[in-house]
């Protein structure tokens, strides 16, 4: 049963410290983690893989997070992916609330992200 479940999680975040915290938290929640630092690379990667969870930073170089979010939601294959949005900007956070499963305001706590990811994993 467990093997059948997609455990791939994509962390799209440019800040190395955040990358490490996010990936550890997601890993602790039982996911396999892939980390990407640039928006355009993330877009390319999403054409190739279908992760179960995307942790998405909004502020990214080259292609911004909200573009990626819209891309995910517009693609039939990717539309059902759980997206945890991470942003430091409350206004952006609000604007994208409806599009994402969860919006977390930076800074994001390790334990908070771990616990939420665990919950998502068990419900999906």
């Amino acid at each position, binding site marked *: 049963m467990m093997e059948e479940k997609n455990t791939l999680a994509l962390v799209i975040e440019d*800040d190395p410290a955040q990358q490490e*915290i996010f990936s*550890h938290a997601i890993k602790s929640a039982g996911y396999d983690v892939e980390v990407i630092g640039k928006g355009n690379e993330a877009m390319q990667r999403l054409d190739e893989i279908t992760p179960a969870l995307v942790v998405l930073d909004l502020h990214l170089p080259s292609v911004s997070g909200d573009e990626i979010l819209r891309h995910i939601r517009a693609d039939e294959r990717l539309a059902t992916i759980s997206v945890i949005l991470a942003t430091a900007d409350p206004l952006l956070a609000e604007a994208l*609330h409806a599009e994402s499963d969860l919006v977390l305001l*930076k*800074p994001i706590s390790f*334990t*908070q992200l771990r616990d939420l990811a665990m919950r998502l994993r068990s419900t999906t």
Partner: protein
Amino acid sequence: MSTDKNTPQLNFWQRITSAHPSIESATERRFASVLSMLLLAFLPLYFLPESIRAILEKHSLPDILYLGSGVLFLTVAYVFSRSPYPRWGSRITILYFSLLPFAALFVKAERYAGDNVNEALIWTIPVMLLALTIVPPKQIKFVVFAHIGFYLIIPALWDGLTHRQVFSTLWLVIAVGGLVIISAYVQGRYLEQARREAKQNKISERRFREIFLGSPVALWEADFSQIKIRLDSFAEKYDNEIRSYILQNPEAMVGAGSSVVLLDANNAALDFYEAEDIEILKKSLHVVVSPDAMLALRDGVVELWEGEKNKPIETIHKTLTGKERNVIVRFSLRAGYEDTWERVNISIDDVTEQRKAEVSIRQLASAVEASASSILITDLDGRIEYVNPAFSLITGYGEEEVIGQKVEDIQKSGEHPEEFYETLNHIIESGQVWKGEVVNRRKDGSLYWESLVISSVKNDDGERTHRVQIKEDITRRKELEQALALAHEEALVASDMKTQLLANVSHDMRTPLGAILGYTEMLDAGVFAPLNAKQAEATRAIAVNTQKLLDFVSNLLSQAQIDTGKIILNPAAFVPQHLVDALGGELSLARTQGLSIETIIDPKLPEKIMGDSYWLGQILHNLLSNAIKFTPQEGEIKINLFKDNDISWALQVSDNGKGIPQEAQEYIFESFRQVDGSPTRQAHTGSGLGLSIVSHLCRLMNGEIKLESEEGKGSIFTIFLPLYEAEER
């Protein structure tokens, strides 16, 4: 006084000679009265001796008839004289005396026969003269002609009497008759003239009375004859230098006032002096005529002496109730009394109100003159009729330069759009008051700001006649306003910059703080390696303090947004659970500290509700931080989201911590306030911003805060919010 026609006590003689009451004309009455007197006197004088002789001598029938008819005639004449037709009495009398000589011829024919006839006829001459007195002049000629006629007829009627015998007397009668007619004619003309004059006098007297009594101007009629006598004596002594004598010798007129006799005063005068009747006024002249009025009397007398009529002299009179009135007095001599001054007309014009008005006008005028605001009066075309000195001071135009000019020609700057001037003109022409601020031009061409009020002046009929402009130079104020506006703008920019700076700072702080917190938590969670007890304690301390720092930075940002009014709520549909999910690591951190935190979400809450989830999250976060701060280890915190009723839901955070004292509950929602003086203060340092932000956000969301707290038992914060269920999409 001379008006009573019926003297109540008539003596006997007057009673039997008075005219009939229906006769009004005085001359007619006098005539009737004289006639009746004559007849009454004549009857006994004339008839008594004749009658005695007739009785004592021989009393022939013709004699008795002659006498009887005489008595009858004259009695009838007397009766007529007392009747409304006294003229008939005179006619009968004359007829009797005219017939008398001829009758005598018949009655005493033997005595007057032959040449003696003239002895009888000669009587006609005194009769004609008598007629002159009692027959109206116009009718005299008939009497004369009748007599001459008789002379011509009598020889034919009486045998033995020749024309020649009669003629010797006839010439005399014709001569006397001619003289009588001439004198009657003269008399008639004189009487006519006299009557006309009398009539004229009467009319003018009546007219004078009417005017006098009915005049709205207070009028007196007074007797100045004593003063005239005094002046005449001065004139003799001082060679007619009356004016200089009187004006230089005040004692000359001492007592003159009391020698004036008030004869009459009209109703206007009685009203003016508040006298009930003329007698009271006469008695109270000394009250009315003040010392100042005595000077006016003296001046008036001098003017009268010099032949001046109605020269106005201003003075002060007092009414009988003691009110002082400003009056203009004019003296004039009544026609016909120029020599005696027995009748002097005095008119008294009340000018008190005028004088008062003049005083207030003078006051207003000097206020306008002295005003620091410039004041213009223009006609309806905008042509200047008056400017005050302030106008000249502000604009540089002299008064003489602008009188007659149009305001717009000299002042209009053209700085405002044409519609502005049109609206202004329209409002003024419609009679309304215009208030505003205008850029105008000075004489030297420089522009300045004026605050301007234009209003209309109306006459008694309510028609607009002039416009008044009151202007104030507000250039300085305008400059200040502009400077202020600039300063305000700069301040806003500065404030914006401050807020922006704060936002940037807190944003930039949050990112590394987040990293610190994240790594600390990872250490604590044993991600890298299990920690010994000391290490775990240290990492936890780092985490707790980092979390506090994070909260502080977040609240600073929120407060900055609140201060600048930058918070705009964006309600959107959200899942209530997400509010709890979005709580930061604080929740798990608190749990690791040993606090029990329970979250309850009411299943009756709709799946999605409308609200600004970011700011709701802030509220929940701050309430939670507050609860954690004041709850000791092993304490319990509950987060409860529940549906209150159909229109409201609530966020509730309760703890079993130390609670908030009653007196502090009122101010804990204020910025930078905490419950001071508490023994555990050191352990609970914080910015004091959290609850103030909660309260502010709650107000923005039209919510309500309820705080239940008891010292030592804990606190319950409940935020009630309007419930809007999100529509299903």
